[in-house]
């Protein structure tokens, strides 16, 4: 009888240990896979909002958590219509995003400051000469803010090749949660707006 009880205890303890071991191994594998994997190519956006744009080329899929921010710099060629939408897992809350346009400007810059000693009469004097030049700069101009916009997407007919930066912010919340976000960047040839006779 005693032997049977000790045998049963032995089995129970072996089973419990092995269950613990398996749970730990499975949790380790699962968390490793999740932390290294990217989000699948899932589109979270409303199909109606996507329209007839081609989203191949500059669309991104990212894993994000509450409080995270992300910036995506894209480029749109001239004579193209572009549409940008950002959507994600519902549990991430209202994903906010802005679109900023890089506006090129030429500014005067100091290229060199020359310091030379010149003779003025008998006395040597120090002459300082500033050499000016121009250089290109990019200023960021806000063109869309999802919090204030009426439409759930940013759309524009691009006349000259322009770079845009999409900045995404996930609302604060449980930082242990990781969700997927799809940043949809679509383009299509600009439709002719001329009236035909």
């Amino acid at each position, binding site marked *: 009888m005693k032997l049977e009880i000790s045998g049963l205890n032995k089995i129970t303890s072996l089973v419990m240990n092995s269950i613990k071991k398996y749970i730990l191994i499975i949790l380790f594998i699962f968390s490793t896979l999740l932390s290294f994997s*990217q989000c699948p190519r899932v589109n979270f956006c409303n199909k109606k909002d996507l329209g007839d744009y081609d989203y*191949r080329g500059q669309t991104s899929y990212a894993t994000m958590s509450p409080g995270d921010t992300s910036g995506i710099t894209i480029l749109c060629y001239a004579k193209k219509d572009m549409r940008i939408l950002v959507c994600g897992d519902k549990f991430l809350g209202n994903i906010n995003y802005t679109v900023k346009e890089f506006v090129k400007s030429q500014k005067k810059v100091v290229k060199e400051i020359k310091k030379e000693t010149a003779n003025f009469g008998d006395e040597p004097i120090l002459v300082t000469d500033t050499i000016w030049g121009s250089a290109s700069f990019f200023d960021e101009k806000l063109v869309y803010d999802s919090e204030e916009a009426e439409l759930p997407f940013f759309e524009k007919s691009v006349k000259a090749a322009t770079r845009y930066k999409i900045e995404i912010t996930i609302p604060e919340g449980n930082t242990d949660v990781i969700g997927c976000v799809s940043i949809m960047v679509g383009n299509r040839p600009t439709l002719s707006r001329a009236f035909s006779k």
Partner: protein
Amino acid sequence: MKVKKIFLLINIIVIVVVLLNGCNNSVNEKETSQDNVSISNTKQNKSNKNIFRVPLPMDLYVFLNENKVAYKAGLLNSYNKVGEYYSTIEKSINLGIYSSDLAYSSVYKDNQNINKYFVVCKKLADGLELSEGFDKSTLIRIDKNINNPDSLFEIANDAYWNVFLSLEEQGKSEIVSCVVYGAWLESIYISINSINKFDINNEVTQRIMEQQLVLENIMNYVNEGNSENTKTKSIIINELKDIGEIYIKIINDGELASENDFNKLKQTINEIRNKWIK
């Protein structure tokens, strides 16, 4: 002995139960993927990622075609050279070059070359152990649509885009950097060698000049995607810098930019591209 057998049996039952439970969960997760919070690993810090993207090489070829720039099959990298690339960097950059050639031939409806260039892309992709994009099912789609140029164009676009996404998903940042760089290098090589005269007021010249923005995005993409300073990264960055410096000079000179500057840009691009194709 009996205890050991019972223990082994219980172990097997536990494995089966855990696995079955895992399968059930994944099915449920798929069904309600948008509503449920799935399990996640603990995350301590807020992250701030920067991602850079560039348009598909296909877009540049579509523009050339729309602007009546003639097709020059002689500019394509010979498909007979596919066996001459041995290192990972050579294979990856030439996968980009060949997929760009595939895009060029599909935009200009050179159906004979589409199949050939798809086969060389597949060969290089296989060598790099990439299963998506240039796979057997796409090859079958090409065969079925060989007389349908519009479908071939879409298939070529899909193939490049799927390779790009699958490489990113697998975290193969060095290979994807090489593919993107190779594809862009080929597209700028073909564009710059397709025009006879430099004219800053011409739309095609302007589009070639706009590639400076693409170049900057590629440079940032390579920098952000590869945190370690590898040899491959420094090779790509240095080549992009060489091209970028000439671009900056031409752009800053604007109307005053000379034919000489443009020829220098052309020469640098040709040298770098020809170095890679051998």
